[in-house]
């Protein structure tokens, strides 16, 4: 029995202290920049109470879902970042990514020093999933393939970004040239891409379920359904 052999949310699969100090500072600066931009946009546009409540409880749900062990390849954990992006949009999705990472780091999953890098990766997943879902719906895709595809693409982008961050930063204490490090990291990214497909399919089913019980929850689907409805005036 070897449960929980894999854990995935296309997270940085590096523990604390794995990057040199300059990389820690660099990714923290990028993370702060992204969150700063999102906070500025939210403050400028004004945030409604229901957005704060949705983001807070959405992050709690995402964090709770991570506790569930799915029996794939010995056991995987997901926190459905793509789904969170589709449901809450790019701005709230980024805030949720940050908050989930803060709480994860507090419980020993993720790293305090890599909060910036982890937030960049997870926010990329949420933002990409939102825009891809929006684009696919506008191309008249059904909800399941649109959400599954969007989540898979979002998570795949996150996995590639994660690999890029590791290769750019280098591993603390390793004398391995960047080319060989890229070779080593490629396997990790490949594994994450495989899990991205599984999480994408699961996201597709979840969105399909949510649309079947509460179509109003997914604004883009709801808008399309309203546009498709007959006006109620007949000749």
């Amino acid at each position: 029995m070897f449960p929980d052999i894999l854990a995935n949310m296309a997270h940085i699969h590096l523990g604390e202290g794995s990057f040199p100090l300059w990389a820690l500072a660099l990714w923290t600066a990028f993370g702060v920049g992204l969150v700063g931009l999102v906070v500025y946009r939210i403050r400028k546009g004004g945030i409604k109470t229901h957005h704060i409540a949705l983001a807070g409880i959405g992050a709690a749900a995402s964090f709770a879902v991570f506790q569930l062990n799915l029996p794939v390849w010995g056991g995987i954990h997901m926190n459905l970042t793509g789904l969170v992006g589709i449901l809450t949009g790019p701005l709230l999705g980024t805030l949720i990514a940050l908050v989930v990472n803060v709480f994860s780091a507090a419980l020993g999953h993720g790293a305090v020093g890599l909060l910036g890098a982890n937030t960049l990766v997870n926010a990329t997943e949420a933002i990409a999933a939102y825009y891809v879902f929006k684009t696919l719906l506008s191309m008249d895709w059904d909800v399941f393939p649109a959400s599954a595809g969007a989540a898979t693409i979002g998570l795949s982008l996150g996995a590639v970004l994660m690999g890029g961050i590791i290769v750019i930063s280098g591993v603390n204490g390793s004398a391995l040239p960047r080319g060989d490090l890229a070779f080593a990291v490629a396997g990790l990214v490949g594994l994450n891409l495989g899990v991205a497909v599984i999480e994408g399919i699961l996201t597709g089913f979840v969105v399909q379920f949510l649309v079947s019980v509460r179509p109003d929850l997914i604004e883009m689907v709801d808008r399309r359904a309203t546009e498709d409805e007959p006006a109620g005036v007949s000749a």
Partner: protein
Amino acid sequence: MATLSNHVPDPRLITAYSEHRDSPVHRINPWTKFGVIGALVIAVTVAKSLPVLAGLYLATLVFYGVAGLPYRRLGLWYTLPLLFVVAVAGPLAFLEPGTPIGGSVGTPIGDLSVTWEGAALFAELSCRSLTVVSFALTTTMTTKYADIAYILGTVLPRPVDQVALLTYRFTFVMVETLEDLVKSVLSRGATLSEFWSNRRTYARILGMTLLTAIERSERLVKSMEARGYNGDITLYGDVPRPPLREVVALAGCYVAVVGYAVVVVYEVVPV
């Protein structure tokens, strides 16, 4: 069988340890403990020597024990952090240039062998990761809910603080909701042992968790607005400044880390 994993710390258990236990570590000011995490992050990032890293890790483990926290649980919770180390340091243990340990294994891409340097790198990365993981868990398991909420509300910018406070409050509710949903499908005969054949059941569990979250948020909005919410979730608690002896100890930690980095690691100041 799908269950809530015991390899991921349960926030309810973490909070129970902080609320219902007492130890010298519980009595340390929360600001001091959070300050030490910062010093440890810098320390494990700049330290290059395995004995220094192992010493830091051992010290953290002793601190965890002084707090009266369970080592067996900590071992289970190490699964994911160690997996992250294995994911990267595993291949590096083979690829790192150096002296091979024992013989090499022939593979289609050439001979592979673990090198002494690769094994040392693996040990260093493990110590780095587990040091901060252990201390972060010690901090969350010895700091009361109200104090963590106060610190979150103080250090995070608005509206991130509001989101974080609601997340912290509702994490416990959502974990229970998820647990109830898993129990209910299991009691109705689902096995959940195979992902693909049960994919729709999983989607319903996760979908219902999110649906519950959203509906709860809708009710919460009404109650927040009824109480005149204006973008500020008022916190009535207070975490005082640390006492002088803790400030001195914390400053000592930072001086030691910076001094070690400047003198030993970067050799800016020759000895």
